[in-house]
């Protein structure tokens, strides 16, 4: 098969061709070390501080869309046919500062200034989409940006006033949109790209079938979708990842389909891309979804990756298991489906054969009488990894509970259903007694571990109390709130 050996993308205003791109080369190192674009900073190299935030623009179904990403864990090889916009490219009209920049200056939103370029980029992306955001929307947009000096107050104030400094209609990226789209289109061809040294090779398949073929011939390859986990293998653990197959650009894996019975999401759909459809179908996930990582990671990370990496503390598996999700795996041309819960065999081991990949996730839509809830408990409310995550789903018909599915993350080596608790509810009248019994049953369902996120004792108590929270939240007799809201 013919393939090319270099990647091509736009960096600010310049066409860039890079040959021999190692699989583990990060965008941040490329920017800082090779291009000396030093406005983008390294704060943590794990996608948690946002100092390296840049925009990546990409054509999807012919539409150019810009999103914030963490350059520290974004691989250079994943940027073929993209437009990378760094802080150096921002500008206002007639040589002035960009409206976002001027607002931050005027509101005294920088102190040491090291986090500032990242905040500018995050707020720039927000302003392009939503020039008059609410305070909560600003907070959500900068969940992935840490500032240690200001306490955030002036940054939030600047974001809310930014539209008084200029509107997106006059923004340079808006004005150049057509031109950039044309330039990006010119970069797209239907070739596989194979680049980098033999032992650190990056494979960028042309389409999903090419991906399936590539994985068959390289069954031990690292599959890189959003890189929000694999990125850390490189930056934190210095693990070799080559050969790596990059799939974040595969539109075939980005489909979102709704039928009368189910929502089907391609494995390459990011948290951000899925958000609208997820909330439409499962309103109980609205607040939960905003608490998955920070905005940059939601823009990069995929639901398929969150499942495929097998982590016991991923945010989506418990809630998807509770909803009765199934996944489709593919190897070459062969597909098979299985309940999501069965994918997780034990810690570090999933039901995925060499050469096989997760292709899609199928989530049944709620049935009549179905009560759903999703809870995440973490040390910090936003942009944290859960100590305990839980999905609840029960169907109440004529006062009797059936189809009880309760799944927890953080309570065992895998995301797991609470068999004893489910049994304590199944067939019982919806009432406090059944939930008390279910809470009690959790003691035998799980033996959680103690680590830096939470002690075993806390995890057990919280899990039990979440059972009560679920009951109270579905009863609502007093009108008294039973959980804290974000705003």
């Amino acid at each position, binding site marked *: 098969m013919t393939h090319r050996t270099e990647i091509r993308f736009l960096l600010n205003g310049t066409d860039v061709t890079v040959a021999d791109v190692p699989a583990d080369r990060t965008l941040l190192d490329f920017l800082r070390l090779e291009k000396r674009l030093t406005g983008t*900073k390294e704060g943590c190299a794990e996608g948690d501080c946002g100092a390296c935030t840049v925009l990546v623009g990409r054509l999807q179904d012919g539409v150019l869309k810009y999103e914030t990403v963490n350059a520290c864990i974004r691989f250079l090889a994943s940027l073929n046919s993209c437009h990378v916009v760094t802080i150096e490219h921002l500008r206002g009209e007639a040589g002035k500062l960009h409206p976002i920049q001027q607002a931050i200056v005027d509101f005294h939103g920088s*102190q040491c200034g090291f986090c500032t*370029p990242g905040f500018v980029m995050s707020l720039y992306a927000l302003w392009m989409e939503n020039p008059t955001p609410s305070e909560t929307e600003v907070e959500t947009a900068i969940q992935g940006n840490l500032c*240690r*000096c200001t306490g955030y107050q002036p940054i939030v104030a600047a974001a809310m006033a930014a539209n008084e400094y200029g509107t997106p209609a006059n923004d340079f990226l808006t004005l150049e949109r057509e031109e950039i789209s044309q330039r990006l289109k010119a970069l797209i061809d239907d070739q596989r790209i194979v680049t980098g040294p033999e032992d650190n090779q990056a494979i960028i398949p042309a389409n999903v079938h090419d991906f399936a073929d590539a994985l068959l011939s390289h069954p031990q390859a690292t599959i890189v979708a959003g890189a929000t986990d694999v990125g850390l293998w490189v930056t934190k653990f210095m693990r070799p990842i080559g050969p790596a197959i990059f799939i974040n650009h595969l539109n075939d894996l980005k489909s979102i389909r709704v039928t009368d019975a189910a929502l089907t999401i391609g494995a390459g759909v990011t948290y951000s891309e899925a958000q609208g459809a997820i909330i439409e179908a499962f309103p109980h996930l609205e607040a939960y979804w905003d608490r998955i990582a920070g905005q940059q990671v939601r823009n990069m990370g995929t639901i398929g990756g969150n499942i495929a990496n097998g982590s016991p503390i991923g945010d989506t598996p418990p809630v998807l298991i509770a909803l009765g999700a199934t996944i489709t795996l593919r190897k070459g041309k062969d597909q098979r489906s299985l309940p999501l819960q069965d994918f997780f065999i034990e810690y570090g081991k999933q039901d995925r054969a060499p050469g096989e990949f997760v292709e899609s996730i199928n989530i049944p839509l709620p049935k009549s009488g179905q009560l759903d809830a999703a809870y995440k408990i973490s040390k910090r409310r936003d942009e944290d*990894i859960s100590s305990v995550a839980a999905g609840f789903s029960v169907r109440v018909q004529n006062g009797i509970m059936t189809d009880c599915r309760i799944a927890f993350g953080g309570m065992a080596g895998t995301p797991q259903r609470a068999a004893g608790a489910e049994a304590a509810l199944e067939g019982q009248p919806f009432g406090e007694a059944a939930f008390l019994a279910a809470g009690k049953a959790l003691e035998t369902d799980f033996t959680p571990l103690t680590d830096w996120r939470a002690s075993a004792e806390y995890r057990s*108590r919280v899990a039990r109390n979440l059972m009560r*929270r679920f009951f109270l939240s579905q009863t609502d007799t007093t009108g008294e709130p039973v959980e804290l809201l974000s705003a």
Partner: protein
Amino acid sequence: MKHDKIQETHQSISGGVHTNRRHDSAEKHVTGRADYCDDIAEPYGTLHAYLGVSTIAHGLIRGIDFSKVLAAPGVVGVLTAEDVPGSNDLSPTGLKDEPVFPTEKTEFHGQPLFAVVAETRDAARRAAELAKIDYEELPHALDPIEATEARYPFVTAPLKLERGDTGKAFADAENRIKGQLAIGGQDHMYLEGHIAFALPGEDDDVVVHSSTQHPSEAQHMVAHVLGVPSNAVTVNVRRMGGGFGGKESQMNLFCAVAAIAAKKWNRPVKIRPDRDQDMTATGKRHDFVVDYDVAFDNDGRIQAVDGTFAARCGYSSDLSGPVTDRALFHADNAYYYPNVLLRSRPMKTNTVSNTAFRGFGGPQGVVAAERMIEEIAYALGKDPLEVRKANFYGDRTDGRNLTPYHQEVEDNILHRLVGELESNADYQARRQAILDHNRQSSVIKKGIALTPLKFGISFTATWYNQAGSLIHIYNDGSIHLNHGGTEMGQGLNTKVAQVVADTLQVDFERIKITKTTTEKVPNTSATAASSGSDLNGMAALNAAEQLKERLVSFAAEAFDVAPEAVIFRNNMVQVGQDVISFDDLVRKAYMARVHLSAAGFYKTPKIHWDRAAGKGRPFYYYAYGAACSEVSVDTLTGEYRIDQTDILHDVGRSLNPILDKGQVEGAFIQGMGWLTTEELWWDKAGRLRTHAPSTYKIPLASDRPRKFDVRLAEWSENKERTIKRSKAVGEPPFMLGISVFEALSMAVASVADYRECPRLDAPATPERVLMAVERLREGG
């Protein structure tokens, strides 16, 4: 929430004192053009160093096999203790307990044992993992309690503060409570980590660029380890991406390693640890375990306090002596203790050596004081604010103004400040509403607390209270300003330039602010202890006044007028009846051979301290503040939210109110983080497991109070003759975060009808809050 844009106020010149001048680098910050150390262009041939660290907490080093390291691609060599040409010692207090690299044993997990030098940072970092270290493990002690049990020594001499007769007071006490409080440490989590970049020069010379709060000490340390005089070493810092105390002594290691390698290979050498190594290999805020014993009367007035403050100092002394001292200095917070005995226990532990962090031990002392207030309030069934007020310092007339270290409180504004906040924040009505709410609500409980603050300003090491500056006026009238302070975001350079602009009555824009360098101002003190503007502002004022005096006497002579008839105003100089521009005057002065460069100097008056006696006046003055916070707690999970915070803070007559407000807001959030979500967690092997932002959680924008009102006490003026009667602002407001901790405590206490002090340890993570709730619900 208020989002009004704050306008800069203009007097005659732009950027004079007491105006809202923006940070001088603001435009560079937002455009990414502000250069930090890692942004400096590297000369051809630059090498990179990376530290290899210990993988055990305590043990003898039998040997290190570097063969795989040296065979790794790109590696140029390794540095060990044997490569240190001068003294293998970095201890900032001269106790010789902190080697660059240890020779015989490792004393904490993550201790730097060697450095790898390679052509790229990536190569050095990868190779540093390849050393085979042969250890003989020894038992380790990780915290002050384990260390006490294992009979570990103090890392430095403890302090005792004593006044009155505690023995008699406890014997006569109407009420007495003993308790123990554990207070966690804190990582600085400056966004820019440690870094040093050394360029070798001729002879013994080396120039080091670093991100340091203390360039002079870095200079002296580099000279010390190279075995060369200080005049061979230059240390430069343009700005830091945050410091917070973490770069007061902790960058010495990086400067030393870079400089040693640069001289050894005669090539530029940069060293930048990754975030994990930065957090595991460098010190943090000290954790404390405080044992307290408090006697009080039935009105809640304290009669006696006995407190022991044991700190996790880590393996070496570093700054633990002055840090634990300052904990004792602030164990009274705002309260008069008629009889008092306070002792520090600076414990050696097998953990990283803890260091300076905003407040420098003071916050831990204040938390202990507030815990005793809480204990008294719950024991007597009173509002803690009532107990606080009953114990406030008085003045000379009532004799309740003597601190445990025998300094008189002469500038007390606690009553007015707290009274104003109590009324502005509508404390009493809101507290009542919360008590009512808590009776009705079973799951969500609320709490409110108004906590005061008094914080002593000056380095307790008296000789540190000095500063220098250097100002040149070039013959085109442009001004070059340099001083010994360092810029880490606090706006020090802006404030000092405002002082110069005001003195010479020229626009701020005329003044070029330049990097801090040991070449221009020697023997400087750390930019720490909130002292930056107090010291360097005065030193710059001194230099500017010298120049002004020379210009005045020149003008008086040249124009034949009395010196009083020469007046500087709005970029002009009035000379008798004539008005000439500042530029013209400077040009004329140059032509007349007037010296247009001046070095300024300042030393803080009045202060003295006798540590052995525990008596003196360590502080020039006090800064005050108060905060009122309201929280909601989910008693099923321990999660919480800060609903509202109102702050009234004292900065005297502010040099720059908007920058000071930024300091207050930022410090509050940082203090809140310390006491809520920021948790340092070591495993049994002594390995810190919360070592990057993925595991160590500092506050986010969404953690801010839902309503947040911060005001400066505009009526306040420093009673002492500080720079323009302003007060220090860096550290004091950090302790306003304690209001959140106290409010959480009240919400927890509500589940047992406020009959019992919940005795929350810090940080009050959701886990600690839930466990306290369940403990109280289950009956203690």
